[in-house]
């Protein structure tokens, strides 16, 4: 498919929907639909709105249309040895930039480099009244006005349709190696966080139930030196391994049954829920497969200072962790500020939004 600017077309569709109060379901590549399920509304497709608008490697900025396939961005950056440092997980060749940002999806490098939202510099978007708006820009530092472009990340399309996104990019680390060490869960959590608090060039830390996996990245000399200090076994097919943790294609995820994503302070000791666990993000991101009830899972997460998202087998439980009533009220007002007739992705995040 060729580069294409569909701003006018998308704007017309939103304006019409605003006039008639029609719900719109924003669809990018459609690769996350198995997870997000069906959401209300007439489909509005962004995948045709694609192409890289500008890329200045020495400015560390790329601007691309929301429908641009992630793979195309990766390829353009790779030519200049650069990368999206938040390691966005890809769910197939159709994954779009807009989808990644809307879901704030970030890979294993998240605790060390930041999340998708940390790399957003600016957006052009259509709000719920059909207006095209531009926030932020293509520079690294910009505090003029509220940081709306960053807040688009993780709003799951409920505040508007992103047209273009400007992202900070970074050099690709010249060297990397992954080492593994057998460990029990509690010790694994401790070890990952101890090392993360020292000055090793660590770029990912996970625990697969048996082994702590540490990825070292940076200058060749630094990676070699750290590898010596940390010890452990060399993992050979590490690139695939880290990708599989990011996009849930790792063997841990296969099969049926409930799957939960639990986010807690990284050094939290193992939660007392029966089942199988996989830790990423130094222990800050915990995948859980087991039979505990949704309310037990949510209570355990909350007590630890975190929250839980259901990925599959939710048995009637809401996907996202319910918000505190005060928080929900504020969310409704924010939603209305962008989308007064509640046309975008109605009910996708919460029933009330």
């Amino acid at each position, binding site marked *: 498919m060729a580069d294409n600017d569909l701003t006018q077309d998308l704007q017309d569709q939103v304006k019409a929907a605003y006039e008639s109060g029609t719900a719109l379901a924003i669809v990018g590549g459609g690769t996350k639909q198995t997870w997000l399920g069906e959401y209300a509304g007439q489909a509005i497709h962004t995948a045709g709105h694609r192409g890289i608008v500008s890329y200045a490697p020495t400015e560390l900025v790329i601007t691309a249309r929301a429908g641009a396939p992630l793979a195309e961005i990766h390829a353009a950056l790779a030519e200049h040895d650069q990368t999206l440092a938040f390691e966005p997980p890809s769910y197939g060749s159709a994954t779009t930039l807009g989808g990644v940002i809307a879901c704030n999806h970030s890979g294993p490098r998240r605790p060390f480099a930041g999340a998708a939202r940390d790399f957003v510099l600016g957006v052009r978007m259509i709000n719920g009244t059909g207006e095209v*708006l531009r926030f932020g820009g293509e520079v690294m530092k*910009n505090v003029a006005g*509220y940081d709306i472009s960053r*807040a688009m990340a993780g709003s799951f399309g409920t505040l508007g349709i992103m047209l273009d996104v400007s992202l900070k990019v970074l050099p690709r680390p010249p060297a990397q190696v992954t080492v593994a060490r057998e460990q029990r869960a509690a010790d694994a959590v401790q070890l990952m966080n101890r090392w*993360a*608090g020292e000055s090793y060039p660590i770029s990912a830390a996970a625990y697969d139930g048996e082994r702590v996996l540490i990825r070292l990245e940076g200058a060749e000399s630094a990676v070699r030196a750290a590898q010596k200090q940390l010890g452990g076994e060399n993992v050979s097919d590490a690139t695939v391994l880290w990708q599989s943790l990011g996009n849930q294609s790792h063997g841990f995820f296969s099969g049926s049954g409930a799957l939960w994503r639990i986010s807690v*302070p990284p050094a939290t000791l193992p939660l007392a829920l029966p089942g199988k666990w996989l830790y990423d993000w130094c222990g800050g991101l915990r995948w859980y497969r087991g039979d505990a009830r949704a309310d037990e899972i949510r209570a355990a997460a909350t007590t630890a200072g975190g929250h839980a998202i259901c990925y599959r087998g939710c048995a009637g439980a809401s996907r996202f962790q319910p918000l505190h009533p005060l928080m929900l009220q*504020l969310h409704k007002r924010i939603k209305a500020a962008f989308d007064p007739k509640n046309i975008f992705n109605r009910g996708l995040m919460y029933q009330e939004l």
Partner: protein
Amino acid sequence: MNQSALKEKVIAGLARMLPENALLHVDEDLRPYECDGLSAYRQLPLCVALPDTVEQVQAIVRFCAQLGVPIVPRGAGTGLSGGALPNAEGVLLSLAKLNKIIGIDPDNRCARVQPGVRNLAISEAAAPHGLYYAPDPSSQIACSIGGNIAENSGGVHCLKYGLTVHNILGLQIITADGELLNIGGTAFDSPGYDLLAMLTGSEGLLGIVVEATVRLLPRPQRAQVVLAAFDDVSRAGDAVAAVIGAGIIPGGLEMMDRLAIRAAEDFVHAGYPLDAAAILLCELDGTNEEVSEYILKVRDIMVRCGATEVRTAKDEKERALFWKGRKSAFPAVGRLAPDYYCMDGTIPRQRLAEVLATIDELSQQYQLPVANVFHAGDGNLHPLILYDANRPGELEKAEELGGAILELCVRVGGTITGEHGVGMEKINQMCVQFGSAELTQFHALKAAFDPQGILNPGKAVPTLHRCAEYGAMHVHRNQLPFPELERF
């Protein structure tokens, strides 16, 4: 209600909820609060409240919300855009007494602090664990973390370690109707919208920060700085691009122009080369091996880009000295003239040479000298305009020149503020950077948080009416034969 009756009522009400000495209302006591770091703007508030507990803050906000009395939050008052400028009909709410470090959590690498804690105090408290708080504004010995959050402050290490928004995990705020709200926490994410992004940089307009959880990082094993001199600013700009193009992200990358170099050298004797048109300070930090590898590469790049001189700090003492010159550039330049006015635009770095040339032309046109210090890595430019406030009209001239510089930044694809905020100062330039649709969206977001509009009203986002007036004046001015007569 007239002004004095209102004042009486507010003071009587607040006195009931605050300890003795925590409420100021006599003019001479209010005087120290009449401005922030931008002293050209002054205003006495109705009164100053100095709560020392979160409950008191909450009670004050509830009380003000009931009466519809504006609240202007204030941290340490070092802001440079008039964000904490008092409101004549409002309460100035100082958060300075909420100054406890609640806890350092080395395992989760974070600190819980009250808003009045000084930026540097966090790193000092974290130091025994080998950790520190990365954003380091030059004002870090004085400015508060609450103010940093409200402004999304940066520092010389932002390119690599991010701004305040990248280093905040959680907030506790008092909303405009006096509710206590927890946002985020110690985990890497939280359910719902990214309120941390909305709050950070909101200049006290969306909520009052009463607690923050900030991210701590391990201290790099080693840091080393290279100083490179150039006889041409565009060559220095090319060198910056070349370093980044080579895949190196320095911990700090700063540029100073001739006037700034001279001022700093006179002030701290850092050994800067006085004949240079620009110097770059490039700091590399990380592991021993990485720093060793990259320092050689950087030296090499500087030479290739035409540096007339390249020096590596030979020890920690010299490194500190190189930085001292940069970090004291503002006061140093301040010694060259009775007053200086610090601007804060960001530009795409590739436009640097052109922007500096235009600033030079403007400087000559307005007959006011301008020194430039530049966070070169991330394109954040601080032109310092020298003037004398005692000369009639000179402040206005400086402000006009400043406005022209900011509009230049927008024209080349940048922004009117990189880290100091809009406040009162750049409210007109917001009309240049944003159209009415964006401004309307900002106002709608503000109303979602603060329907009554009592938090820091009149700052950060101009009304459409104001922009219409400013726009009209602008067009008008270009046609006027005596532009210097036209004032807004």
